[in-house]
């Protein structure tokens, strides 16, 4: 029997079909070849943000089965627990059916159904009034969606700066930490070189966006016997299979990592050549305390940073490939003392405060362990180097016969980012990677296109001068390079409702969605009129301090009007947030609409080449619902927003599908990079191709371009890659991307705090800016810890993503919720003993912010000072199509109730958003708690309890028995 070469991830010889897969004649009458589907539609999964390719098998007009697309670059045929349960999401009883207009009080869930035209008219009138008077009174924030290039574009055309997606409460620390340092980042924008790495360090990851790629990768490491080291207070999932588990104390990774740096420096186990070629280590930094340029780079007349040439004994352009720059020393240039960046690095991290013995106790990691890890890193990086026999040419035209690699790779996510010291910790990890010379090298951490980009990338945030009927002069989100780029008024007051790019969160590259509700409620910095939200459960699991947040959403002024006057929300299901909207715009499910996973947004690229993808309707909606992107485009047209209407005022785009194909951001660049040009012959840049979508569908719903071998590594300085990146429009110029170990933009804020420059922080902020805006990574205790009494609240409380649940959506899924419908609080057995707690006890979990009740489970695999639970399992009664007795609302709990959304008052009595002071990243994991057994009569049910939501019109009670699949069989057997 002839066999094609096996495709896909699970194609080991022990995972293939039988050599002879013909049915034996057992004679037991079993139908071994039932027909599976009438047709297979290939699209992109959206049971989570990983965006795998799926084959949807349609039988008798229903979805029979969903499996992974073997050709897809993201999942290569595998599928996760959520993806396989898509059927139950698609047929969820909680699906919204028709636009809803609130009739009862906010939060009651009392609505009446209205027609789409009425819904759009209401929205249009409201929004055009805002646009005519003061566009910033519209706050438009989006969550899980993957259409931020459209929504951001729409906001900017509308003219409001008050736009952001969920990144601010998600992982902006990783994005900003990376983009300001190496021009790329962890999260889903880079990945380990799974095929070559020999030593993999995983910091604070339970699941991440790259759900399947990470699992596929771990599978490869295990198959090869490469070493996996997990740094995580919890030993579950990925961390359970690590060869080495380091149960670190939450919030102390910065110390741990800088101690590793200390050890490596002390032993001289660093890659000097790499530092010289790809980083700003040699760049000279002005050392003139008090001066306006203290700590800034020494530059030549054209603004090129200078280095000191060891041989010529003169300053040289640091980028000059012929230069022989010094890394140490102190030099006089124009009568001013300056030192190379590396000198500063050495001075700081060689200091004994970063010695393993100095940090061990605080981290809860033995000094020997830290030394051992440092030794192992050095050993693998420098003694187990790999060399791929591939010639390549660097940016300066130097040809290299082979590609050298150091097979140490790292990945980090929210365990780092969700702390208020996450930005610096993330920078510290990148510093460690760079010192070892492991970024974008074989066996190391690799960029996914369109990254790397200049650190930080180009566009600055817009929204300083907001005028009626006027678009912003760019996109609302971007990257600041100093105080001048902040969005603040002359008194330093924030220009944005979420206070992003203000002195309170200068590098808030993703906004602060988690502070919008409070600020809008408080009218601080100003009141808004309409809050429009999309795909984010802000009245529940994506807000901190849920109880108060709900109160703010429903709070009224003296006149009896809601303090947040109008709320428009688009959801596909009856989530907690729907009940708080005045106008509900029901969306389709992911199998019923067009979507675009674009290089302009969060593409599906992997390190070996760029890619993007679409979703397309594989089944038709059976309800009166519409894709939100199409609705947004129609709103744009009704409002007459520039670029959404033709000269004659008619709609420019029929719907989202039409926009995906015909929209051009700049000439030749559109949402999709594949099959551009009339004939579909070009990629990246090219004319609009009318049948682009069909080409995508024919190709399984995605486009992917594999790099040539010489483009795959050293992308920050690889000519072949950089030229390609320019062609594709990833970067403006084919210039090397220099890793910013020392960050000049951050130093500029410090200088402002010291009184230099025109844009000055309010005096109350100077201290904070001075402290946190450190140009080199450093560690400080999470903000919350300085505030709370650690005697009273001795424990850290964390959440983890269950691999089989996506935030709040999983609980409406008849299959997934069977796996977890009650979340336990996991407590270390020894900790429990000292607290007199036993397995299955019900406890109060109390923080500064309040208390919540849950049931504990004793385990061994957790840092003893840490308790944790699964995220977003607890639900509010009446939501998600669940029955009143559902465990989710009776025994499951939501930790968010006790996570404060503000810090405790500082010396000036000021309370900030509970976020990283640099990026505004929500500090979910800073919360400190105590736990105590609850009274006997309090056991068995969770608290706080909330009033039950009313059931929307035409919602049937959910079924008592589910026989999904019986129909397929009946039809099949009838046919036989």
């Amino acid at each position: 029997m002839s066999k094609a070469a096996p495709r896909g991830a699970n194609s080991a010889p022990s995972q293939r079909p039988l050599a002879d897969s013909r049915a034996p004649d057992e004679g037991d009458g079993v139908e071994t070849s039932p027909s599976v589907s009438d047709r297979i539609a290939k699209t992109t999964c959206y049971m989570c943000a990983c965006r795998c390719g799926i084959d949807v098998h349609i039988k008798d007009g229903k979805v029979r089965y969903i499996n992974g697309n073997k050709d897809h670059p993201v999942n290569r045929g595998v599928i996760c627990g959520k993806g396989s349960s898509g059927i139950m999401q698609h047929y969820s009883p909680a699906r919204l059916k028709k636009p809803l207009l609130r009739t009862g009080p906010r939060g009651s869930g009392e609505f009446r159904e209205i027609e789409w035209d009425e819904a759009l008219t209401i929205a249009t009138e409201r929004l055009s009034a805002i646009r005519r008077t003061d566009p910033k009174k519209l706050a438009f924030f989006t969550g899980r969606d993957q259409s931020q290039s459209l929504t951001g574009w729409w906001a900017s055309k509308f003219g409001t700066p008050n736009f952001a997606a969920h990144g601010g409460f998600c992982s902006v620390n990783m994005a900003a930490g990376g983009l300001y340092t190496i021009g790329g980042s962890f999260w889903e924008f880079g990945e380990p070189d799974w095929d070559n790495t020999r030593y993999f360090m995983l910091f604070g990851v339970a699941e991440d966006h790259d759900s399947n790629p990470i699992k596929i990768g771990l599978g490869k490491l295990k198959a090869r016997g490469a070493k996996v080291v997990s740094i995580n207070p919890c030993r579950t999932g990925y961390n359970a299979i690590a060869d080495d588990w380091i149960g670190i104390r939450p919030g102390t990774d910065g110390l741990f990592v800088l101690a590793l740096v200390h050890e490596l420096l002390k032993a001289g186990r660093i890659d000097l050549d790499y530092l010289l070629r790809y980083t700003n280590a040699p760049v000279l930094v002005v050392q003139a305390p008090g001066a306006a340029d203290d700590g800034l780079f020494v530059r030549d007349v054209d603004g090129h940073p200078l280095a000191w040439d060891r041989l010529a004994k003169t300053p040289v352009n640091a980028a000059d490939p012929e230069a022989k720059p010094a890394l140490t020393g102190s030099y006089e240039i124009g009568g001013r003392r300056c030192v190379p960046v590396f000198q500063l690095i050495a001075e700081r991290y060689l200091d004994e405060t970063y010695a393993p013995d100095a940090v061990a106790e605080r981290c809860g990691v033995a000094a020997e362990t830290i030394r051992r890890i440092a030794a192992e890193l050095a050993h693998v990086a420098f003694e187990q180097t790999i060399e791929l026999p591939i010639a390549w040419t660097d940016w300066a035209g130097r040809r290299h016969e082979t590609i050298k690699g150091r097979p140490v790779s790292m990945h980090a996510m929210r365990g780092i980012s969700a702390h208020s010291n996450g930005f610096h910790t993330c920078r510290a990890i990148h510093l460690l990677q760079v010192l070892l010379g492991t970024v974008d090298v074989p066996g190391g951490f690799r960029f996914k296109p369109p990254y790397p980009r200049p650190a930080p990338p180009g566009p600055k945030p817009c929204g300083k001068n907001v005028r009626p009927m006027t678009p912003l002069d760019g996109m609302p989100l971007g990257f600041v390079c100093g105080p001048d780029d902040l969005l603040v008024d002359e008194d330093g007051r924030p220009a944005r409702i979420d206070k992003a790019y203000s002195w309170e969160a200068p590098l808030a590259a993703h906004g602060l969605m988690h502070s919008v509700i409070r600020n809008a409620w408080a009218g601080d910095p100003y009141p808004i009129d309409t809050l429009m939200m999309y795909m984010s459960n802000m009245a529940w699991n994506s807000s901190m301090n849920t109880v108060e947040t709900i109160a703010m959403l429903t709070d009224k002024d003296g006149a009896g009007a809601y303090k947040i006057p109008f709320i428009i929300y688009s959801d596909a299901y009856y989530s907690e947030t729907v009940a708080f909207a005045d106008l509900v715009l029901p969306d389709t499910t992911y199998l019923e609409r067009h979507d675009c996973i674009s290089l302009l947004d969060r593409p599906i690229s992997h390190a070996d080449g760029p890619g993007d993808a679409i979703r397309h309707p594989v089944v038709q909606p059976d309800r009166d619902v519409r894709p939100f992107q199409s609705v947004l485009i129609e709103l744009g047209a009704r409002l007459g927003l520039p670029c959404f209407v033709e000269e004659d005022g008619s709609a420019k785009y029929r719907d989202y599908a039409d926009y995906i194909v015909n929209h051009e951001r700049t000439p030749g660049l559109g949402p999709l990079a594949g099959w551009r040009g009339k004939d579909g012959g070009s990629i990246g840049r090219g004319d609009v191709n009318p049948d682009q979508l069909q080409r995508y569908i024919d190709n399984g719903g995605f486009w992917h371009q594999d790099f040539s071998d010489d483009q795959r590594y050293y992308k920050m300085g690889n000519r072949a890659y950089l030229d390609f990146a320019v062609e594709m429009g990833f970067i403006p110029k084919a210039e090397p991307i220099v890793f910013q170990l020392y960050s000049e933009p951050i130093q500029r804020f410090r200088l402002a705090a010291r009184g230099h420059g025109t844009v000055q922080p309010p005096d109350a902020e100077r201290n904070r800016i001075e402290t946190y805006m450190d140009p080199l990574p450093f560690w400080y205790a999470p903000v919350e810890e300085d505030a709370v009494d650690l005697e009273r609240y001795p424990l850290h409380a964390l959440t983890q993503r269950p691999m089989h649940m996506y935030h709040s959506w999983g609980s409406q899924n008849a299959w997934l919720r069977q796996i977890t419908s009650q979340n336990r609080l996991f407590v270390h057995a020894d900790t429990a003993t000292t607290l007199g707690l036993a397995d299955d006890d019900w406890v109060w979990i109390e923080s500064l912010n309040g208390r919540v009740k849950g049931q504990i489970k004793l385990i061994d695999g957790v840092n003893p000072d840490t308790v944790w639970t699964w995220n977003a399992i607890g639900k509010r009664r009446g939501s998600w199509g669940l029955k009143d007795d559902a465990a989710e609302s009776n025994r499951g709990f939501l930790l968010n109730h006790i996570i404060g959304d503000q810090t405790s008052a500082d010396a000036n009595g000021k309370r900030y958003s509970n976020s990283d002071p640099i990026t505004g990243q929500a500090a979910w994991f800073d919360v400190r708690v105590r736990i105590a057994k609850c009274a006997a009569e309090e056991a068995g049910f969770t608290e706080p309890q909330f009033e039950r939501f009313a059931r929307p019109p035409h919602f049937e009670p959910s079924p008592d028995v589910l026989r999904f699949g019986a129909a397929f069989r009946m039809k099949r057997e009838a046919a036989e």
Partner: protein
Amino acid sequence: MHPAFSVVFFTTATGAGYGLLALLGLLGGLGFIPADFWLGLVGMALAFGLIVAGLLSSTGHLGRPERAWRAFSQWRSAWLSREGVASVVTFIPACIFGIGWVFLGKSGGWVAVAGLLAAAGAVTTVCTTGMIYASLKPIAQWHSRYTLPAYLIFAGMTGSVLTNALLQAFKQGSTAMLIGTLLATLAGWGWKLTTWRYNDRLEIPTTANTATGLAGGTVRSIEWPHTEENYLLKEMGFRIARKHSAKLRRITQAMAFAAPSVLLAVTFALPWPFAAIVSVAAAISQLAGILVERWLFFAEAKHTVMLYYGRE
């Protein structure tokens, strides 16, 4: 194991029924019990009644009772099938014996043969029932040398206590029968006590280690595959508190063994009708006690699947 009433009643009733049938067949057939229409009728009716009621109740436990007939097919491998076959086959000699002994008032000869065959069938059937449980390796408390004898002893015991009550009621009581019954009851008591002692000291080689293949140390379940109770937990995860089972064991002993023994002993000294009343009381007490014993038989049995759930 979940003590489903249908099964508890089934095993108890058929046990007593077949025990009674066997004794009537034996003693009646050989003429130790003189053929007497009313005694015979009541006796046989009682035996058949218990057997049929038991068998019917067992089908109540089925998901598809209408297909119960299929259960006879696998006698070559399955004890449940063998039990089915045996129970049905036993009806044939039992009926012939009944006709001869009760309606024709005969004993000896072909009636004796039929009676002996009926007795043999009854014993066989009880054995097959016992083997259904004794053969289940995942349940150590059942998969032991105590189970099969227990079924036989209890069938004989309850059978004789019924026979005795019957004879006493019809003024046919005999010391021999009384002694036999008393001895059977004491035997049953003894057997139960040794079984309990055995089970309480049982060291099961199958552990969470062998169940998971994780050698050495301890294996502790920290998360189930599902947070709510499923079929496995409902059917095989039945738990009974030590205190509770100790209490029920005491009740079993009092009702199934102690009380009947005393009552039987008293019977020696009593004239009819008191002897009859007391003997019937003994029978009722013992049957009730055995129901409790049988409930415990299930409730105290532990299935290896619970090792996966860490549920003791």
